[in-house]
């Protein structure tokens, strides 16, 4: 008899989980490279009851099997590209394709991110906004400035002329410096990106389900070119999330209502004999 209370309770719990995720999506609406999470529900059932029907112990017709409500099956990341927005900053990179930037974590393992708001750390290495080093290392030499990143991922910087080079220059040549390549950005892409595990700080790590990464230069093989001076905004659509939030919170209150009503019925049944 309390199974109806359980069903209403499961409805409240799963929709609460749904609200948590929507809130998280909304909180990250302006997080660079954030990918929205989508929750998926399924009804849950006492499998012993199903077996009893299949074994012919209980007459079928849907009558025998009562469900225990609803549960969360999985939470999937939606890896659709977010809108690409201009920033004008040379070290802001957006990937127009399926690739991920590779960053090296403290323990040496590689994590993946779509957030390309890079900067230089104290050692003049290219790092993410959180200070994770881009893999492979790209060090901008001390005598260089004005990093330029091409669509193919080549990283160049303007190196100042040495005194000897300056002396050797023709008299009317510009003396600013010379553009020299200092590195090459490598991207990784996954056969099943939805299998990636989000570890926070906009980072993802590979799992068995995502399969091993396919590495390559930007522009090659579905990887997508990198666009310097642009950032990929979160792929959270405010209208969608707000709609889902209203829907989920309504579903929550309906279940709460069902819980209260059934609880009242049970409590008045309790008082019958008094």
């Amino acid at each position, binding site marked *: *008899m309390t*199974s*109806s*209370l359980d*069903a*209403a309770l*499961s*409805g409240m719990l799963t*929709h609460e989980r749904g609200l948590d995720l929507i809130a998280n999506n909304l909180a990250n609406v302006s997080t660079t490279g954030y990918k929205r999470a*989508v929750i*998926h*529900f*399924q*009804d*849950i*059932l006492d*499998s012993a009851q*199903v077996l009893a*029907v*299949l074994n012919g112990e209980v007459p*079928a*017709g*849907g*009558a*025998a*099997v*009562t*469900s225990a*409500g*609803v549960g969360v*099956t*999985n939470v*999937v990341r*939606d890896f*659709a590209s977010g809108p690409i927005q201009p920033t004008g900053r040379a070290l802001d990179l957006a990937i127009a394709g399926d690739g991920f930037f590779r960053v090296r974590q403290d323990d040496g393992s590689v994590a993946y991110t779509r957030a390309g708001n890079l900067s230089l750390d104290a050692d003049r290495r290219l790092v993410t906004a959180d200070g994770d080093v881009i893999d492979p290392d790209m060090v901008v030499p001390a005598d260089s400035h004005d990093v330029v990143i091409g669509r193919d991922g080549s990283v160049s910087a303007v190196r100042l002329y040495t005194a000897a080079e300056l002396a050797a220059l023709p008299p009317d040549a510009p003396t600013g410096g010379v553009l020299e390549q200092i590195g090459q950005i490598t991207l990784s892409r996954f*056969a*099943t990106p*939805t299998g990636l595990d989000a570890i926070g700080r906009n980072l993802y790590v590979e799992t*068995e*389900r995502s*399969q091993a990464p396919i590495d390559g230069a930007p522009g090659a093989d*579905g990887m997508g070119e990198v666009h310097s001076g642009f950032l990929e905004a979160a792929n959270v659509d405010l209208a969608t999330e707000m709609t889902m939030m209203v*829907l*989920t919170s*309504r*579903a929550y209150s*309906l*279940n709460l*209502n*069902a*819980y209260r*009503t*059934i609880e*009242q*019925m*049970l409590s*008045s*049944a309790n008082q*019958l*004999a008094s």
Partner: protein
Amino acid sequence: MIRSLYTAASGLVTGLRMQATVAENLANATTTGYKGERAAAREFAGVLARSVGNAPVPVPLQLQTTLGRLGTGAFVNGRSVTLETGTPRSTGQPLDAMIQGEGFFTVQAADGVRYTRDGHFQRSQTNQLVTADGALVLDTNGQPITLATDNVRIDGAGQIFRRDVVDVIDADGLPATDVAETLVGSFGIVTAGADELVRAGASQFTLVPGVQAAPITLGGDSTLLQHTLEESNVQVAESATQLMSLSRAFEASQHVFTTINDTLRAAVQDVGRVSSR
């Protein structure tokens, strides 16, 4: 008079049982591909009431006057699945599919073939098309569907095409890219009657023993929509109304119960009591 207590109690039990169905439906009001249930209450077989008022004792059978049928309460007779198609919700995900019209996707779960309306599919680590809880999606031949990429097109007839970007030479002799489509397989869609389906959890159904699912071809009355999921077909307003009306009916049964109980108490305690005054 004792019998009427049981009759009133059957109303209470039925109310709670019916409410369980409403609670389950409401819990799954946002579950993809969920099919709501309807509980049907039925009257217990009644008895024929006869008058024995002025008859001599013992009562000769032919002297009894038939008064009519006496109801003895209600019970939940059965729950049936409602198969109306839920509202389509666009998700933009290439592996989300919905059957508009009748039909079920065939999937291979751990303990046998199951049927589902939940078309929220993914690729497994072995590149096979699976449901959200990992059951293999089967094609028209009952075989798993293998996909190397999420870049697919699914047409209205349930055929899945892999889309590959290929380099071609255009009419002017210049290199260009084009999309080549390769047929990977077709969803195995079957149909079954509402009374043949048994809930198996995880938004899946199985069939009652001895019943075979009938394969159907999509493209006619039923079509397949890609990038779309089917919302639960639970009518929230209807369920909320049922919740209230069932609760009121329960209260009514409770009043009947209390009234009969009070009458019985009066009969037991007061009838024949000699006044102390």
